[in-house]
């Protein structure tokens, strides 16, 4: 199916854009904004606001109608697929299908000091009314907190014989998360741990696609709730045991 953005009429392609140009607010700047948007494939463009940002900068709000549409049949989504169960179901599932507690080690690695996202998944209290993994009978959770060196995380995984490692990365500026996550993956490979352990990564700028690219099993983005993570762990662990 071909689709276009919707303003007030089907297929009108209406969109709003806002951006800054390195030009003093002027007739020239306004025309430049318009031309830029036209060049991007917009028609009936209108610069509705030009504001002087001081120095040699101005800010624009522009409306236009794009002529570009998209055929939804051509789109492929990289999405993690698993059955979403609630806490009680997950606990029962693990008991019946695996028969022992699963050991989970979580950390925010390297220079990143953010803990709230990881805690939302792990702490009893959980997130959005959904209890965290510590609340589950069949998870044994080690939350190492933040600023954890990859080396220390690996040591811990070995020490407690982790089934799952949960990594959080919040700071993504200059792709620092890619660097950190690659380091952890390299170390896990080098230590021969990669195949025994389910490796998941989460954070507001993390996609499943990126996680796969970096060698992880799954990526969890913004709005993740603990029972999703729990369900994934339980079902994946069972699959792995079957394939062993």
């Amino acid at each position, binding site marked *: 199916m071909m689709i276009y953005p919707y303003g007030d009429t089907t297929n009108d392609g209406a969109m709003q854009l*806002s*951006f*800054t140009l390195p030009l003093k607010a002027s007739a020239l700047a306004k025309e430049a904004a318009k031309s830029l948007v036209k060049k991007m494939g917009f028609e009936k463009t209108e610069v509705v606001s030009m*504001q002087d*940002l*001081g*120095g040699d*900068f101005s*800010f624009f709000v522009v409306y236009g109608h794009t002529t570009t549409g998209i055929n939804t049949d051509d789109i492929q989504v990289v999405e993690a697929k698993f059955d979403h169960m609630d806490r009680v179901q997950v606990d029962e599932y693990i008991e019946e299908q695996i028969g022992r507690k699963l050991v989970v080690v979580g950390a925010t690695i390297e*220079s*990143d*000091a953010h*803990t*709230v996202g990881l*805690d939302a998944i792990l702490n009893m209290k959980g997130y959005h009314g959904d209890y965290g993994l510590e609340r589950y009978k069949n998870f044994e959770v080690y939350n190492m*907190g*933040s*600023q954890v060196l990859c080396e220390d995380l690996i040591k811990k995984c070995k020490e407690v014989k982790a089934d799952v490692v949960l990594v959080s990365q919040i*700071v993504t*500026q*200059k792709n*620092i998360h890619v660097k950190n996550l690659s380091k952890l993956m390299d170390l896990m490979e080098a230590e021969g741990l990669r195949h025994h352990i389910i490796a998941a990564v989460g954070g*507001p700028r993390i996609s499943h696609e990126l996680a796969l690219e970096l060698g992880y099993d799954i990526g969890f983005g*913004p709005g993740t709730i603990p029972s999703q993570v729990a369900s994934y762990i339980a079902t994946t662990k069972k699959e792995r045991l079957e394939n062993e």
Partner: protein
Amino acid sequence: MEKLKLRLKSEPVNRAKEISKEIVEDLMDLIRENTTTSIERTVLRLFGIIGADIDDTPYVNIIVKQLMKKGVLEMGASLYVLNACVHHDEEPEVIAKMVAEENLDLTEIPMGDYEKINALSQRLTQAAMDHIAKIKDERDKLLYETWSDPPRPYKYVIVATGNIHEDVVQAQAAARQGADIIAVIRSTAQSLLDYVPEGATTEGFGGTYATQENFRIMRKALDVVGEEQNRYIRLVNYASGLCMPEIAMMGAWEGLDFLLNDSMYGILFRDINMQRTIIDQYFSRLICAASHITINTGEDNYLTTSDAIEKAYAVTASQLINEAFALKAGMEPKYMGLGHAFEINPDIKDGLSYEIAHALLTRELFPEATLKYMPPTKHMTGDIFKGYAMNTMFNFVSVLTGQDIQLLGMLTEAIHTPFMQDRYLAVKNADYIFNNTFSLGKEFSIDDDSFISQRAHKVLEQAIELLEHTREVGLMQSIEEANFADIKRTQTGGKGLDGVIKKSPKYYNPFEGAFRRLLNLDDEVFEGGVH
């Protein structure tokens, strides 16, 4: 006309302040009896030692490390450097180069003539104190005589490109858009470095390194715009971490106006050892107090790791502790930028009533402080339109309740460090609200039995309970119990305890005395002396 007021009863307020004073008093022995590697490096910097070796290790680190290795740092680094200066008849910076490049061992030089050492110490100490006083006076003059202090709430925005030269472009634009205060956010994890990098820097993650040269570059850039606009633009950086006193010294030297400087932030949010931080914050605050740098405290952050309604009292308790620490360091209340935040989940019914209650409580507990009010951050999502609406509410509460430093909310808070237009939109939002609701607070009064009044009193009551408990077990134990920000730290855990050194009875640090005299903190002698 009266401003919007809670009319807090004086009894609980006085009690809260008295308990906080005792909590801090209990830690003064720890502070008195110990020094840290960072304090010693600060003293050497004050003697004029700057620069680094070819591996970018600052000279002051090389010297302090040498003295530590030889087991004599307990005497204070200044004594050894002064002795070497007398011995070689050279200035400290030359001695520093000799240590770094020629392996000069300071401990092998025989202790020389004490009178000469003393005389040199006095000359160098005076020179540094004079410089700090000069910078302070220049700022005060620009701010209060040449031009005038802008109306409150001050509009505060951040720049954080990682490249100081790019930061300049953004900071100047923000100032021209109307910002009163520019903060240069530090690079991720700089607080964990046990040294301060040297020189201008162009690579940082989520922020720009705090270096003395970067401070100088930005100060100059803001002065250029200030001149153009006939107003003074304040500059902010961050001191918390392993180099708290050093960064305070650099700030004082280069004319910074605000420094994030909290007695607990480093402990809770960066896992810096608590003894280290408690000792460091004191010396660091002496410097701030002497140079009229307004400290900014970090209680706002507690509301990201704990619930903003449930744990509002922990913010209040911490503000009181931060105030007590600052008073101990001789700081006047108007240089205390005690922190709090607008961080209640926007889905909560009547959330704004809570926000107003909390903001008024802070205002009335600290009537003379220059309060720092932090915008919504945790509940900002990628939905910039909702975010902009939340920031509007935040600006409204600030003007209604008489806050001082307004950290303008960025509509893209959840996404990236601000774009140029994000700052512009934030300033325009604040201008609109501040102007549109300028006198509104005077039109209303708050009944004693209203929700807002009762809520504020309840938070104060809960804060006093926490303070009483903290007095009983001690602040360090209270932090161990995760009473602040729901974060648990241990007395010997975290980073930097190895940099805490018990002072010898002969410990010498001429600046401690100089600052204490300047600030009229003459209750006891701290500095030792050259014996």
